[in-house]
């Protein structure tokens, strides 16, 4: 009995602890932590060099903020002017400059006729109430101006620069943007240092001047996206900022498919992956995003981008998206359908298939209409869902075969293309025996043989393939 009571008591103790732990706050890292680390690391130079003696002080000064507790420690350590005094003097100097600047220019600087909205000191310059005044008294904007986030923004030089830019002013005149500003997600995003830093770049400012971007900001999907930590972090990277500078990316933002994609958590998370960021840093991919074919992608296929397998795509493979062949492929409905299937996603999750995607041979193959149509067939999808086929794609023999001019030329012949398009060939891919054959070492060896490659290139084999349908 005593033991039972003891057990019960022990259980209660643990349950109490778990309840307290579950209810405890999980803190987000302070804004600017990544930026401060990266600045310190960049200043440090290549790894392996010894840290300078005063590196702690350097970091503290870089971050600009020290806790009261740490200030006490600095004072205890002593030595010349304390860090706290230096920080105070620095803050005072910035404050004096800022007050001086805003005393002259007003804060935030406003355009003609918009004084009533944001320039409290000039509110009564307008002699009559106009339509603009109604916009300017928008409760949501007022709410933002009075928020802690806005106070944080005006303390931030990059954000100040952005707020006073022409692009942002134009954006502010847009009701969709104003509505967006009223949401908690967007406010939280502004509280994030990476987002504030992004605002300071010319690319993001110009993006605000773009109607497509402004419209996008007004959608629920964009707001939800801002609520995602991955999207906020992504905004802090150079690649994503540069992407905003691209007209193609801005135009892409205006498509429903891209907006739908942003509504998907997986896509947002994908933005946080290095592969996707690297891809966005590539001009070919940015251009590809602006193409009509890419825009034709439905939301379901775009969401495929958010899959773990897709994220595993390396830089080289993602760049394949920039090729004309890939664009043409994406313009094809059967390829688009294939993108939405689990089999295709699983295939992308396979390293061998990913490697294959990066090769010129694959791009050439995808440039072929018969191959594209074949991709749309159930048989081909089933084949892709087979591990043996995936492995075969990744085998050296098959890659060598693709690298062979003879094999590459083969699909360029009408006979071979027709062959791929015929029902017999599709049925063949649908057959377990064919899949097993692809997985066999013998077939791989055959592909590795020059004689086999030559045979594929021969007129006789091509003729045979051209007649396969009739033979059947």
């Amino acid at each position, binding site marked *: 009995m005593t033991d039972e009571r003891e057990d019960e008591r022990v259980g209660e103790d643990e349950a109490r602890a778990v309840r307290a732990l579950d209810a405890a706050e999980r803190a987000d890292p302070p804004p600017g932590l990544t930026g401060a680390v990266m600045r310190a690391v960049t200043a440090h130079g290549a790894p392996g060099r010894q840290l300078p003696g005063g590196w702690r002080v350097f970091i503290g000064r870089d971050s600009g903020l020290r806790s009261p507790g*740490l200030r006490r420690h600095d004072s205890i350590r002593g030595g010349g002017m304390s860090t706290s005094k230096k920080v105070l003097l620095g803050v005072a100097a910035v404050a004096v400059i800022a007050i001086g600047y805003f005393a002259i220019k007003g804060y935030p600087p406003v355009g003609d006729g918009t004084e009533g909205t944001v320039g409290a000191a000039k509110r009564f310059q307008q002699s009559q109430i106009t339509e603009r005044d109604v916009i300017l008294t928008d409760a949501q904007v007022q709410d933002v101006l009075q928020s802690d986030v806005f106070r944080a923004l005006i303390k931030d030089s990059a954000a100040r620069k952005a707020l006073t830019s022409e692009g942002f002013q134009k954006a502010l005149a847009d009701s969709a943007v104003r509505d967006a500003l009223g949401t908690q997600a967007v406010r939280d995003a502004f509280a994030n240092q990476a987002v504030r830093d992004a605002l300071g770049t010319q690319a993001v400012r110009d993006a605000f001047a773009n109607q497509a971007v402004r419209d996008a900001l007004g959608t629920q999907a964009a707001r939800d996206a801002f609520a995602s930590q991955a999207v906020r972090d992504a905004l802090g990277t150079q690649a994503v900022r540069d992407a905003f500078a691209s007209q193609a990316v801005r135009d892409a933002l205006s498509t429903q498919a891209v907006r739908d994609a942003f509504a998907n958590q997986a896509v947002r998370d994908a933005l946080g992956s290095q592969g996707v960021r690297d891809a966005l840093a590539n001009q070919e991919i940015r251009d590809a995003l602006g193409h009509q074919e890419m825009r034709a992608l439905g939301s379901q296929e775009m969401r495929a981008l958010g899959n773990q397998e897709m994220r595993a795509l390396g830089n080289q493979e993602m760049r394949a998206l920039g090729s004309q062949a890939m664009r043409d492929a994406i313009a094809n409905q059967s390829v688009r359908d294939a993108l939405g299937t689990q089999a295709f996603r699983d295939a992308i999750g396979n390293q061998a298939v990913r490697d294959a995607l990066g090769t010129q041979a694959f791009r050439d193959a995808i440039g072929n209409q018969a191959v594209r149509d074949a991709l749309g067939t159930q048989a081909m999808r089933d084949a892709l869902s087979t591990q043996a086929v995936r492995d075969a794609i990744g085998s050296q023999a098959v890659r060598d075969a693709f690298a062979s001019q003879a094999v590459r030329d083969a699909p360029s012949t009408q006979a071979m293309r027709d062959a791929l398009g015929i029902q017999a060939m599709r049925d063949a891919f649908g057959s377990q025996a064919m899949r097993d054959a692809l997985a066999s070492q013998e077939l791989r060896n055959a592909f590795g043989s020059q004689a086999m490659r030559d045979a594929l290139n021969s007129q006789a084999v091509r003729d045979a393939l051209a007649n396969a349908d009739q033979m059947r």
Partner: protein
Amino acid sequence: MYDGDQDTELVARCLRGEVDAFEPLVLRYQRVLYNVAWRFLGDREEARDVVQGAFVKAWAKLPTFDPRHRFFSWIYRIVVNESLNARSRRPPLQTLEESELSAPGGPEEVLRSRERTDCLQAALLRLTGDDREVIILRHFAELSYAEIGETLGLAEKTVKSRLHEARQRLGRVLQSEEIR
């Protein structure tokens, strides 16, 4: 939580002098490490400095990192060591700011208010280092048992039993705090 292969690749790029490759590592682990440092130290600003310093130190010492181990386990150890160093640098008794001494209700009220604010934090700080570590890794770093084992160099079974015991002790400390 962590992706070993990707981390290894990023570390290799860093070692080739690609500074940008370090950013994804910072982005991936800053939240977890910040929470770990905060719960070890009980002070957010100090935690920020510790995490910042740990990342810079990791960068500088990257050539000594053994790629057979997880990057997270390595930087986690740096954060824990830096946290312990930060604690040892603290003065023996926490003093109150001048403004707190003159606050309404006096310094006693300030202290009582601090205790109420984070009873759990106080209880965590009363545990042994081992107990605190396993609880923090499970509940604040949200690592799996296997990941905790890998980070601390313990068998998964040992992690489970240590966590069970640590939570029991935490529960008892919390109860005694409530009674007081």
